[in-house]
């Protein structure tokens, strides 16, 4: 039986476990991923099952973690590393941008780096400063990286399996607030691969484009809109790079109206890119400019104020209302 009910954290754990069982060269390392099992328990039990040589704690230094992972990937391993929170991935930024992203290109394809950088990201968990950043835009802007973000338990499992099998480096953004979301999934049936977006809900009136933590919010908004008689289609990007222009543009063309929903600050972000590229491609199908519901251009707020930063059902519905339904 491959049907199991898992939280997203458990699904990620299962994916790591299955990947490590399937391939001896898969290693998992980072801060507190060993005995503790990670601060979110995503690596729970891996050291017990696979031993210290396969899943281990490192010294506390993120550039060191990513830098040594590069070397291991150069020498036959498939390292999976964890940045404890994505804001603690910044010390590794040079290694990511100047090496992880560029190694294959620099060496004319001779040195591939099959490695995964796992990053718990985004907010909604009442975390204090530096614990709720959404840094995917930095990576998405960096040519040579592949950037994915699961929004469902099944995708957490399958995208991570695919990421580990992927021949090139993947930045794997894990929406922290979904870690405890449970779902029954079928481990026997693969989800679509990296690079493919998925329509999570059909709807003819407008399209919501979301990824990671905002997908469930978008679905909730669509539910609420349906109650009011407006049918919203919801696209889950899943993969930010590569971007699935085909699925996204087809969806937008079907509805002629769209709202991008992302948690990160909007300025010069993935959400800007979605608006820009979809507009470039679908301009004449658009009845209104594509709207964005994103975080404000501020540092992530302290816990008592965080609700104001998060895209909410109401804010999404307001944006949809704004899509010039009357002749303008």
């Amino acid at each position, binding site marked *: 039986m491959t049907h199991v009910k898992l939280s997203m954290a458990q699904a990620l754990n299962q994916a790591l476990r299955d990947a490590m069982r399937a391939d001896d060269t898969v290693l998992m390392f980072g*801060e*507190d991923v060993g005995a503790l099992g990670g601060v979110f328990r995503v690596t729970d039990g891996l050291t017990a099952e696979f031993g210290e040589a396969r899943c281990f704690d490192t010294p506390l230094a993120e*550039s060191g973690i990513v830098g040594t992972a590069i070397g291991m990937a150069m020498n036959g391993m498939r390292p999976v590393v964890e940045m404890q929170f994505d804001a603690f991935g*910044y010390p590794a930024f040079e290694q990511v941008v100047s090496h992880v992203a560029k190694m294959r290109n620099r060496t004319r394809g001779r040195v591939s780096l099959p490695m995964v950088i796992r990053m718990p990201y985004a907010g909604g968990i009442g975390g*204090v*400063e530096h614990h709720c950043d959404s840094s995917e835009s930095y990576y998405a802007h960096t040519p040579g990286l592949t950037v994915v973000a699961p929004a469902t338990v099944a995708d957490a499992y399958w995208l991570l399996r695919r990421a580990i099998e992927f021949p090139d480096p993947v930045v794997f953004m894990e929406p922290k607030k979904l870690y405890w979301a449970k779902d029954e999934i079928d481990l026997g049936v693969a989800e679509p691969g990296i690079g493919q977006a998925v329509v999570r809900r059909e709807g003819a009136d407008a399209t919501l484009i979301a990824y990671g933590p905002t997908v469930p919010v978008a679905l909730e908004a669509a539910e609420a809109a349906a109650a009011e008689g407006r049918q919203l289609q919801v696209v889950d990007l899943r993969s930010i790079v590569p971007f699935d222009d085909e699925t996204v543009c087809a969806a937008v063309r079907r509805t002629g109206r769209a709202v991008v929903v992302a948690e990160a600050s909007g300025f010069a972000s993935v959400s800007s890119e979605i608006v820009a590229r979809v507009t470039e491609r679908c301009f004449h199908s658009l009845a209104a400019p594509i709207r964005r519901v994103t975080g404000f251009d*501020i540092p992530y707020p302290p816990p*008592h104020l965080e609700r104001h930063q998060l895209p909410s059902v109401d804010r999404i519905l307001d944006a949809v209302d704004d899509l010039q339904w009357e002749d303008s």
Partner: protein
Amino acid sequence: MSTVEERLLPSAEPVRLIDEHGAAHDHAQYQLPPAETLVDGYAQLVKGRRLNDQASALVRQGRLAVYPSSHGQEACQVAATMVLGDQDWLFPTYRDTVAIVSRGVDPIETLTLLRGDWHSGYDPYERKVAPQSTPLATQLLHAVGVAHAARLKGEDTVVMALVGDGGTSEGDFHEALNFAAVWHAPVVFFIQNNEYAISVPLAKQTAAPSLAHKGIGYGVPGERADGNDLAGLLAVLGAAVGRARAGEGPQLIEAHTYRVQAHTNADDASRYRDDAEVAPWLERDPIKRLDAYLTGAGLLDDDKRAAAASAADQTAEYLRVGLMEDVHPDPAELFQHLYSTPTPQLREQAAFLADELAREEA
């Protein structure tokens, strides 16, 4: 080995002036601080402990989001501030609440971060205490900058920069020590080696003979002290501050202590260590030890002990009352502080939120 090495390498054993049983020991280089200092220090330890435990209790009651306690490390916390003058600066980490409060910062303002109403709640300039740093070791560089600027201005400022054993692995630790040494900046780098970085024990953090041995690679003298002996810490840190003030450049001090509780309330230490490992450290408690010494020396009696406890109770009460008040930070603040003059974009976004909230209320 030459004199350079003798000057830069730490003592063979951590400096300790009062042992686990409260007995004073002579030391070739360091002397026991004056009695009044130790009695005052005792009261501060008691208050620090109370603050730690009260804050932990308030987490359980949902009044704080999280609290990384320095329970058991209070001697380090208190010593770090007792050796400073008003003109000096303190650069604390998230675990150094007690040090901040010892420095005179309001406890409620100090806990703003961990309560979750704002990122940092006190005015750093008021008591010369930098905002608590969460990104590990980054604050050490700020400390060097403050110290260097002070020198350029001709000010008599020493900067006490705190970091954990785990934090020493970060590149910024290295860069801070190196910049300070090359600039001859008056910084005392004070490592609280509590043997753990969350779940990771020191042996997985470093293979160095001691963390104080890191100094010589920068030309910085390293010294180590028993982190649960307030007397030894005061002597060692005091001497380091003195040398830095005298123009001898940066100093590196490692205090050997232990994190007897979990990393924070959210952590489960049983996943990575045995109680058996913790037990002996409870015996080495810094308050017990100083109490025993002071009592033996006739410097502490039940009256003084009660007075210290009651002062600590007041702090705890102040915390309880202060943190029971619900705070309602104004959402408009989200946009106010990024820039001296908000950008047009932020003004627009602030208006959007204000409008949304007005509609919510309507």
